[in-house]
């Protein structure tokens, strides 16, 4: 390998972007070349110095507001007039080029995942894990839904439904206040055999019913659904089939409650 090649490839080495074979070649060159070795050290130092410096900018609250106002509101209401951007020229540029550029480079990929949804699911699993540490599972311990439900009053902006599912094989053991997505959230705790199920309940602006989806994260199953303005995440180490059974029993009982 020549120095000229190494001077380009050593960056990919620093960034961990080289496969093992190329990495070995570059490392071998650096070992035998004082010039490239010194350069690599300097680049690593600069990189380190930059990593220790705050180089981000923060969007101003005014910009956030401008964008918020220009987007349709989550609740249907008359569309506000979009705040015009300062330079008209920015408007005219065809979006097509961005989209075709992305398509051409394969960024339009197979997976349809919502980053944010994923992040919240990860937080829900963390909250579940925290709850399993000794003494963290419940703030109010009761197998009586009429004790657990009032306990949430005044602690949250939403009263999570607390349903007794003992007859269906899921024992209510209590409730807890938790934090997910930087918000206080209600957790209703159930057990089947020795398996804990945390049912997290949060308010959502969206009143539409969304059918349940099951995901697996860090070995836990998460069943997520939305109904009547509430988002639900049931998290457990129970198998997906038993967690699905829990979700179905819960939803059936909810419907019976509302209709009855």
């Amino acid at each position, binding site marked *: 390998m020549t120095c000229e090649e190494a*001077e380009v490839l050593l960056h990919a080495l620093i960034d961990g972007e080289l496969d093992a074979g190329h990495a070995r070649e570059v490392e071998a060159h650096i070992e035998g070349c004082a010039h490239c070795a010194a350069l690599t050290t300097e680049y690593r130092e600069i990189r380190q110095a930059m990593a220790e410096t705050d180089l981000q900018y923060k969007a101003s609250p005014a910009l956030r507001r401008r964008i918020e106002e220009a987007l*349709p509101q989550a609740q*249907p209401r008359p569309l506000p007039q979009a705040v015009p951007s300062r330079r008209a020229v920015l408007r005219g540029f065809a*979006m097509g080029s961005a989209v075709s550029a992305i398509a051409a480079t394969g960024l339009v990929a197979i997976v349809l995942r919502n980053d944010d949804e994923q992040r919240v699911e990860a937080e829900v699993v963390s909250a579940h894990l925290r709850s399993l540490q000794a003494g963290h599972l419940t703030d109010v311990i009761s197998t009586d839904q009429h004790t657990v439900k009032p306990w949430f009053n005044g602690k949250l902006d939403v009263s999570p439904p607390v349903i007794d599912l003992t007859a269906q094989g899921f024992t209510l053991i209590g409730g807890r206040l938790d934090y997910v997505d930087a918000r206080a959230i209600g957790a209703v705790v159930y057990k089947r055999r020795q398996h804990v199920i945390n049912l997290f309940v949060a308010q959502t602006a969206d009143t539409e019913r969304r059918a349940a989806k099951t995901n697996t994260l860090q070995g836990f199953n998460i069943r997520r659904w939305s109904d009547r303005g509430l988002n639900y995440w049931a998290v457990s180490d129970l198998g997906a089939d038993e967690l699905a059974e829990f979700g179905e029993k819960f939803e059936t009982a909810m419907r019976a409650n509302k209709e009855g």
Partner: protein
Amino acid sequence: MAVRASDDDPEKARRFREAALPYLDEAYTLARYLLRDAADAEDAVQECYLRAYKHFDSYRGPAMKPWLFAILRNVCRAEFARRKSAPAPSDDLPETAEQAPMWNEPTETPERQLLRRFDGDTVRKLIAALAEPFRETFVLREIQNLSYREIADVAAVPVGTVMSRLARARAMLRSAWLAEQERVK
């Protein structure tokens, strides 16, 4: 740009907010480095979000950040085109710029002193002084932590080009860094 009435779908708007608004600071950071002007950067970011919302139906991942960045970059390029006096945007750059020499003699060893640390403002200035398209590649890598593949997708160039631009960008930054070190000695 007003959002068309047909785009006024509360569910879509909610999903878009949840997916895209968490990257507002990152988008603004990229626009600041690309445009080197706070007001232009704000306009570009707003425009980027409105375009992204319009095209959100066709968004299929894999990651929101590079998708937003690809849109933002195009908005910024339109802004470059408007500033006729400004350096040409990256894709129109003459071939020779890619071949620009690297000042890459390492500092004298072994007495070379440790690299001097600068405050954020100084480093931002050094980065802002980098020529396009090296600045773009550099910021996407060092500040936004994108992979080479993601940078290639955002900038619509092959990964090999990302690699050579990054090498050039770091070489330029290094000389600027050392010059600044010399200056403030």
